[in-house]
């Protein structure tokens, strides 16, 4: 083994890489040196080259995927061009984005064991490692489950465990938390932190979640269009708000608060940690008491929506998957009014997707009743309900098959039996509502992932349903992509559609929804106005959720009169600036 003690963990020098049959390089002149034991997070918009960078780390590029490569690429002192992937696997574990594609055995235990078996780890040691890692990723109770029967989040954690079992020197994770609940995501980052500290494991993660990057990384690398555009300690990188805004990388809410308040606070360095920002603001607020109650009482009466008035009505709905003994939904009662914009949050496996599949008729309740616009849907076929209620599924690629965007959008409308004129109208409306006008003639799979998601929304909108359900519209989407989708939902809501949105993105929920339903295991824990729900910190923690960062910051300042139900950066800054103006 050519390993020497002096080499870095990762050493890319002037690396340029072009995929086979492509003209434009996916990585341009990238130089990135990572020392052993560093914890590095890569952020950047979709298409920036994050996945490509990750696939270099164990030689999948160029050994498996081919392509043209220039420059130096050495991992643990091994030249990736000269070593096979299994050689690299002794040093580097890699976790890919799509968890399903990397699970291929019959049960959780053998999935985790696979890599250790390939490396010839002795059986006793293997059992120890498997027990440890399944505990770490909260999958201990699922050892005998086939991976196919796990929820999206559980699959993602299993994929991580399957790689960690190799106890590699370097672990590379490509968006490992895109389907995880907030606390689940935090746990992944934090477990990797522990491994990094205890085993001196070098960690490289690509993510859209800037909050966690800020909280856990030693170093943050910002990629855009295949180039590194910023790099350094997280506080330095995230302080470059103008740059990050320009390339659509999310700035942590607390950093943005400091940046917005820079002249008032007289600061040039911005913090990335909640407690630091909180301390700064506390110092500033000391002796002051913000009086805001009158203002919000007024606002409250005008803004708080009336809770549901029976457009979608669930009465004591219980659901059990065939062949199981556990209720996936337990006595769920719920009422959503016409024109509402409702968010549903909850830990992985809480039953959110099961709930909406019952509402839409893909699953039929074991007991209880569901009424849509006063009509019992127990006998209705999904195909017939599509005109009333549409569901946008998580994976856009499971439905695209036409040769152009326009035809794809028309498919549902034609199935609804609309006349030719109506179809044309609906297609035009749906394409305009999702901002896909310029891609009308394009082949769907030539669109970016974000645009394919928009297309899957358009494909449902064209059937002209009154109610639209979005199941995790943010999965795998960058900051810009998720806001664009949420904007589409908001626009449709403003045009009278009822919107139900399931997501793990608390910032999005805070910004877009007025009413929030929190699900715990198989039941509804709380249902109310979004700002009030986020006050129930303990209850949320029960279902692995924490309020958005900005709300947490506001809550830490409640003693000084800052309202704890703040949901947006601007809101808090407005209050603070007003106070400073006094």
């Amino acid at each position: 083994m050519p390993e020497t003690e002096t080499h870095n963990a990762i050493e890319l020098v002037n690396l340029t890489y072009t995929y086979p049959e492509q003209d434009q390089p996916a990585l341009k002149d990238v130089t990135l040196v990572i020392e052993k034991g560093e914890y590095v997070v890569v952020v950047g918009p979709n298409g920036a080259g994050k996945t490509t960078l990750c696939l270099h780390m164990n030689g999948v590029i160029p050994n498996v995927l081919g392509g043209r490569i220039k420059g130096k690429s050495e991992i643990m002192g091994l030249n990736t061009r000269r070593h096979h992937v299994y050689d690299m696997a002794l040093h580097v574990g890699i976790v890919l984005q799509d968890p399903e594609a990397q699970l291929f055995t019959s049960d959780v235990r053998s999935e985790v064991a696979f890599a250790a078996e390939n490396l010839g780890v002795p059986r006793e040691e293997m059992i120890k490692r498997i027990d440890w890692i399944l505990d770490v990723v909260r999958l201990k109770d699922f050892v005998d489950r086939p991976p196919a029967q796990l929820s999206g989040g559980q699959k993602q954690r299993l994929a991580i465990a399957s790689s960690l079992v190799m106890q590699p020197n370097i672990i590379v994770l490509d968006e490992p938390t895109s389907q995880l609940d907030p606390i689940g995501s935090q746990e992944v980052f934090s477990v990797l932190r522990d491994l990094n500290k205890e085993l001196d494991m070098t960690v490289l993660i690509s993510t859209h979640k800037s909050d966690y990057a800020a909280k856990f990384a030693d170093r943050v690398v910002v990629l855009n269009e295949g180039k590194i555009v910023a790099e350094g300690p997280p506080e330095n990188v995230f302080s470059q708000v103008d740059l990050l805004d320009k390339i659509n990388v999310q700035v942590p809410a607390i950093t943005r608060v400091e940046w917005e308040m820079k002249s008032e606070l007289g600061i040039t360095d911005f913090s990335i940690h909640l407690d630091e920002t909180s301390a700064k603001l506390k110092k500033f607020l000391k002796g002051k008491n913000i009086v805001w109650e009158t203002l919000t009482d007024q606002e409250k009466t005008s803004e708080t929506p009336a809770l549901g008035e029976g457009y979608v009505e669930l009465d004591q709905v219980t659901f059990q998957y065939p062949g199981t003994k556990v209720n996936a939904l337990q006595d769920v009662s719920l009422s959503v009014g016409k024109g509402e914009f409702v968010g549903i949050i909850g830990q992985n496996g809480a039953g959110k997707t099961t709930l909406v599949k019952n509402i839409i008729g893909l699953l039929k309740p074991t007991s209880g009743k569901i009424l849509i616009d006063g009509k019992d849907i127990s006998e209705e076929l999904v195909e017939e309900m599509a005109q009333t209620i549409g569901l946008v599924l998580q994976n856009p690629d499971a439905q695209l098959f036409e040769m152009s965007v326009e035809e794809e959008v028309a498919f549902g409308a034609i199935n609804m039996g609309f006349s030719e004129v109506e179809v044309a109208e609906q297609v035009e409306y749906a394409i305009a509502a999702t901002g896909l006008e310029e891609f009308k003639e394009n082949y769907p799979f030539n669109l970016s992932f974000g645009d394919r998601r928009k297309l899957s929304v358009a494909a449902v909108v064209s059937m002209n349903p009154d109610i639209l359900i979005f199941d995790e519209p943010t999965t795998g989407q960058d900051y810009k992509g998720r806001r664009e989708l949420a904007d589409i939902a908001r626009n449709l809501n403003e045009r009278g559609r009822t919107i139900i949105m399931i997501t793990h993105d608390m910032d999005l929920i805070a910004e877009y929804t007025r009413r929030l339903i929190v699900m715990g295991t198989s039941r509804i824990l709380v249902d109310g106005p979004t700002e009030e729900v986020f006050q129930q910190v303990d209850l949320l923690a029960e279902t692995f959720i924490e309020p958005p960062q900005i709300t947490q910051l506001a809550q830490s300042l409640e003693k000084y009169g800052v309202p704890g139900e703040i949901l947006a950066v601007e809101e808090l800054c407005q209050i603070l600036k007003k106070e400073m103006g006094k």
Partner: protein
Amino acid sequence: MSLLTFIKKDTPVHRLNPLTKMFMIGILWIVAFVSANMIVMLAVLVFNIIIWFIGKIPFSNLKILLGVVAIVGILMIVIQGFFWHPTGEYTTLFSLLGKDFLLEGALFGLTLAVKLLAIASAIPILVMTTPVSPFMAALAALKLPFKFIFVFGTAMRLVPLVQEVFDEIREAQRLRGHNITRMNLWKKITKGYLPLFIPLLLSLLRKTNDMDIAIESRAFGAPVKRSYLEDVSLKGRDYFAMIVVFAFGAGLMWLSSYMGWGAGVTGWMAPAAVP
């Protein structure tokens, strides 16, 4: 495909080592192949059904098996009834279009059908009570190369995987008002299948590509001696089961030689074969 998928249960059959189960099936197959004696073959069949019972293998599967074998069996009886060449005495039951239907031929066809059933009913004893991973470990214990075993294991996974992807796609298209069950054959062919099979094909292509990366990334093919999580050492119960099956098989072989192997016509119905 439920005939070939593992069903998780805790029974003495599930607890047996896969190697033991392979040994059992081996013995039962040898007996069923070698002997054409109806009593012997029925004994194998009854033995299999008893193991099904102990292993709580759902009898609904037996029905599927019986259905398949019944079709093949009827075909065999008809074909052998008409085309079997008598070597000794024979009984004509009836004639059709100048061709005689012989009792002995029909009985020979029936024997073949029972043989088929005895052989086929042994398969679920292994496949439906053994998860894929211990099965693979057992194959490895037999010194088969791991690459071969892995292909086998992955193929076992492929059926449910394709099914999963297909279900997801069908769900997505139903949500767009696409209902293939309500289409006539012509419409199914022209309009029904495309929205299901194009995404299926594309999804599987993408998935296999990703899977390739994932498999390699997890050190598949590393130049070290592979270890196994599954413990495939034999326990007391395994020896016990093997002895029982071996004794049973040997007994049946002796019975065949005593009563007649069923060579020529069918030993069991030729009194001359019994000394």
